């Protein structure tokens, strides 16, 4: 009951208070939209990391494929934007099927094989000039439509759209996590033999998580393409789309549903508002320090750390 109240208040604040208070500040809204975009990818990355037990260094691949699929469908085939975004997710999911042979590799090799796929997809995007416009990219990609009287192309509209996407994904993630599929996936990390012997097709389940994670990433990539109305291979497959979500997910705690999203908001906003001002070039250094620091100081991310501290405080207070 208390939990529900918290969620309700958070929803009202997210959909109501944020646009009302900040809606007029274009720059701040752009930052929040970008942070949520990264949060969406971070959520997808964490789903694969937490439930699939797979660390990926190549989510930029799915981001780029989603962005290009959607942009090409809208520009060349005049699909409606929102439908094309879903197709972008499907495109990324199909691309993830190509990466499936990597599932039989052990952890670090999987991570790096996916990275290789990212490079391959980027090169293909450059080479397939007739489809993608090559290195020059695609200009004036149509933006979002007006839906139910809300102009989604406005800053506030785009914010509401990406917020809805992220919330839907978080809900889906939570649903999977609580199901027997989620239980089996969580158990697989430490006890793969124990799960297989009771009939869990562990490789199939991991593959399913890979497809879902790629789909989510592709939808977010498509959102980004229609929001900034421009694409080129260097941008769409940039390593930032891998680095930032990993930093966000690890900072926020990738074993929880909300950690990656909160992590993205904190990490990205602090980076843009503080560190970018302090050091205009090279401020991404902070992400490196963050990743290294989290691994050494708290391998489960920030949220569990906070939990531990608050528990400690509570026990102090009780004593």
């Amino acid at each position, binding site marked *: 009951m208390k939990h529900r109240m918290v969620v309700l208040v958070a929803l009202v604040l997210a959909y109501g208070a944020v646009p009302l208070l900040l809606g007029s500040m274009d720059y701040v809204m752009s930052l929040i939209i970008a942070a949520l975009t990264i949060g969406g990818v971070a959520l997808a990355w964490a789903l694969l990391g937490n439930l699939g037990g797979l660390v990926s260094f190549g989510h930029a691949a799915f981001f780029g494929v989603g962005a290009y699929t959607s942009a090409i469908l809208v520009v060349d085939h005049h699909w409606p934007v929102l439908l094309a975004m879903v197709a972008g997710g499907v495109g990324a999911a199909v691309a993830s099927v190509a990466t499936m042979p990597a599932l039989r590799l052990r952890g670090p090799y999987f991570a790096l094989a996916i990275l290789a796929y990212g490079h391959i997809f980027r090169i293909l995007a450059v080479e397939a000039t007739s489809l993608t416009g090559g290195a020059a990219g695609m200009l004036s990609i149509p933006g979002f439509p007006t839906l139910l009287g809300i102009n989604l192309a406005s800053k506030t509209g785009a914010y509401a759209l990406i917020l809805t996407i992220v919330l839907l994904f978080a809900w889906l993630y939570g649903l999977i996590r609580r199901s*027997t599929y989620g*239980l*089996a996936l*969580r*158990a697989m*990390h*430490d*006890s793969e*033999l*124990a*799960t*297989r*012997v*009771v*009939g*869990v*097709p*562990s490789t199939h389940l991991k593959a399913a998580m890979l497809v879902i994670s790629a789909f989510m990433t592709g939808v977010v990539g498509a959102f980004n393409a229609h929001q900034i109305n421009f694409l080129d291979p260097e941008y769409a497959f940039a390593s930032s789309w891998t680095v930032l979500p990993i930093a966000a997910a690890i900072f926020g705690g990738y074993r929880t549903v909300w950690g990656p999203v909160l992590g993205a908001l904190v990490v990205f906003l602090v980076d843009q508002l503080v560190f970018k001002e302090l050091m205009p070039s090279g401020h991404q250094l902070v992400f490196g320090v963050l990743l290294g620091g989290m691994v050494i100081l708290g391998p489960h991310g920030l949220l569990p750390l906070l939990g531990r501290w608050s528990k400690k405080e509570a026990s102090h207070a009780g004593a």
Partner: protein
Amino acid sequence: MLELDAITMRFGGLTALHAMSLSVAEGETLGLVGPNGAGKTTLFNVISGVYAPSGGTIRFGGQDVGALPQWKRAQVGIGRTFQIPQPMRELTVRENLRVAQRFGAGKEDPAALDEILDLLGLTHKQHADAATSLALTEQKALEVGKALAVRPRLLMLDEVLGGLEMATKRAFARTLETVRARFGLTMVIIEHDIETIKALCPRVVVLNFGQLIADGTPEAVFNDPQVIRSYTGDTPA
């Protein structure tokens, strides 16, 4: 129900099972005994699909299951336990059984889980963490519970009574008998304690050096000179 024909298992230069043939009839309870290293656990691993045998065929319920992956063997009705309990970490006792039931038996059935928990005396621990908060007997019970939740036709128990005190062991053996009758199971039991074997198993087979050296009633088998020799350490002729 289970027919093994000329099963051979080699690990590099070591042959753990030598062209072994064995059949187990429906409803039978078979005791599997033999000295350490005789190949008993290897046989379980081959039947349940942990290892692919180097040669031979495995038929279960008339179907050749030799090519099925491990998880599918569970789904066709082969349940097993491990000598060292393998709980699914991070999950509670009940969640362990839920996963086994959902994937092994194909659908969730809370009432059936309640019954298994009750039969094995785990009801009061069903929400406890499976990896950290169980006593040895409870860990063994959970091991059996996971195998039962799969709704097996064949249940293979690998020293599930090992390491237990005599009184606990007798009680657990009675539980196994109840479970067998309740679910109409065919069972194969690896066990070192001869009294327990005699109490549970009308038929016993003895393995030594990866070969089947005796097959019969407990009385006949345990008086066989070759079996006695195998336990005193002589190599087979």
